[in-house]
């Protein structure tokens, strides 16, 4: 079989992934009521987190010196990035089930990247529900903050959403990779994905030192929302972030993704040497 040129190969894989995802959606649509109910509950969960934020705002004048609109933008940015990443890559967490039930072998027997297979085969459209509340909140925040919107600022916001999604996607891949070594520890990884996202909804300087370092810098979640929002809206800056930090966000995103993919590949090699 002749090797296709790279471009044709990618196009073919893209078509394949699209078809697999469509197949999966068709499969899920067979259980329509359940699908809608689950999608609604996904949206509701995310919305409740914002409601909690609002309830807190009733009790305090500012959250760590950040006003309501600034906090709303923080929530919107972090939850939206998370929602996008969750919809596209969240299904990778099913790896633990695949490994436990011996299904991962099947994945290895197909001539397609295992990562893309998991993404496509376990695609859950209902995860898109998570994007709705933050989109609305972000929209409201954009309309109600005091700064003037310039093209540069708008670009920064868009870049932040994209980079944030990439960072969360990397986190999903990283957390799923745990299953290659210790499948039962999968739940611990939730502390970083779901926990990280939860932490991100509040200004980073609220947290104690070690939480801040682990969930903000070591796992660079601060770059998803806190750094962009602080820079964009010139919000209170008790941590003393330099003004150029926000421009490193895309680099951090790329670097995090590269690390995650390396760990993933190492995980597969480990799986191949120890079996299931």
């Amino acid at each position, binding site marked *: 079989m002749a090797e296709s040129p790279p471009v044709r190969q990618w196009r073919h894989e893209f078509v394949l992934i699209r078809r697999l995802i469509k197949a999966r959606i068709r499969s899920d649509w067979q259980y329509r009521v359940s699908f809608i*109910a689950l999608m609604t509950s996904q949206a509701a969960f995310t919305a409740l987190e914002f409601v909690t934020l609002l309830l807190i705002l009733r009790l305090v004048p500012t959250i760590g010196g950040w006003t309501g609109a600034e906090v709303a933008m923080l929530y919107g940015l972090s939850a939206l990035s998370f929602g996008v990443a969750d919809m596209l890559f969240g299904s990778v967490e099913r790896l633990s089930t695949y490994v436990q039930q011996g299904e991962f072998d099947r994945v290895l027997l197909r001539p397609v990247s295992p990562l893309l297979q998991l993404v496509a085969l376990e695609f859950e459209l209902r995860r898109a529900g998570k994007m709705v509340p933050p989109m609305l909140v972000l929209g409201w925040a954009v309309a109600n903050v005091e700064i003037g919107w310039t093209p540069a600022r708008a670009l920064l916001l868009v870049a932040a959403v994209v980079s944030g999604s990439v960072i969360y996607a990397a986190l999903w891949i990283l957390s799923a990779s745990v299953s290659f070594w210790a499948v*039962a520890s999968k739940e611990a990884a939730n502390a970083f994905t779901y926990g990280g996202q939860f*932490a991100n909804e509040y200004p980073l300087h609220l947290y104690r030192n070690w939480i801040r370092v682990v969930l903000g810098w070591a796992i660079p979640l601060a770059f998803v929302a806190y750094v962009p929002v602080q820079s964009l809206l010139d919000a209170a800056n008790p941590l003393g972030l330099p003004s150029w930090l926000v421009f490193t966000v895309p680099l951090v995103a790329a670097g995090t993704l590269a690390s995650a993919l390396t760990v993933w590949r190492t995980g597969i090699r480990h799986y191949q040497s120890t079996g299931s």
Partner: protein
Amino acid sequence: MRLWWEVGVRSFRRASTYRLATASGVFTNTIFGYLRASILVFVAGAGGAAIGMTGEELVTFAFVSQGFLMIIGAFGDPELADRIRSGDVVIDLYRPADVQLWWMANWFGRAAFQLLARGLPPVVLGAMAFDLAWPDPWWHWPVFALSVLVASTLGFAIRFCANLSAFWLLDNRGVDQMVTLLMSFFAGLLLPITLFPAWLARVASLLPFASMVQLPVELYLGRHEGAAIVWVLTQQLLWLVALLGLGRALLVAATRRVVIQGG
């Protein structure tokens, strides 16, 4: 009686085999406890006395409520629903033992393990980093214990009903999620109900979920005295009876309408 004990013990043992998974769960619970505690500490500081709870109380609330998660079934227990979907439930229905009691015994076995393995550790770990409040005087402890017992049983009662809905819906994940949703908000897991605006707190008081975490933790924090304590426990028990009754009614209806999906 012996039968229920055996069922419970088996369930306890089964839960205890997942050591690594349990440890991972404790880790995640504790992290979430730290996060919530940090936020609440700030709220206490910035909100002052007006909010109605001290920083110490709020932080305690954060960790103790994390400890509650597993014993009240916050994330659901789809085992019964799975059995309904696969048709295995017929075995349960033909057993010469009460189905609801069977599953309750099952639940308690597991909850007992989770109380030790996932209820206590987050609180202990939290105490190492924050100043936590403790029940005082001594007899608040047994009162709290009783409240926890009722809360856990209430968790069972609700999940039992949610699982039984699979008889009609087959795919009852929507119902399960709905329960988890309502539980997280109205049991005070996202934010103590004490911090809710008055109207929302009233809504919460009309729902059973508050009896699952909020009320027991209030007893833990000693926010009730004398007759009020009795009233709190009574509230919990009333909800328990109501939901167990609902579960029974659903069971009778379901047994009549056994739909088995197989193939």
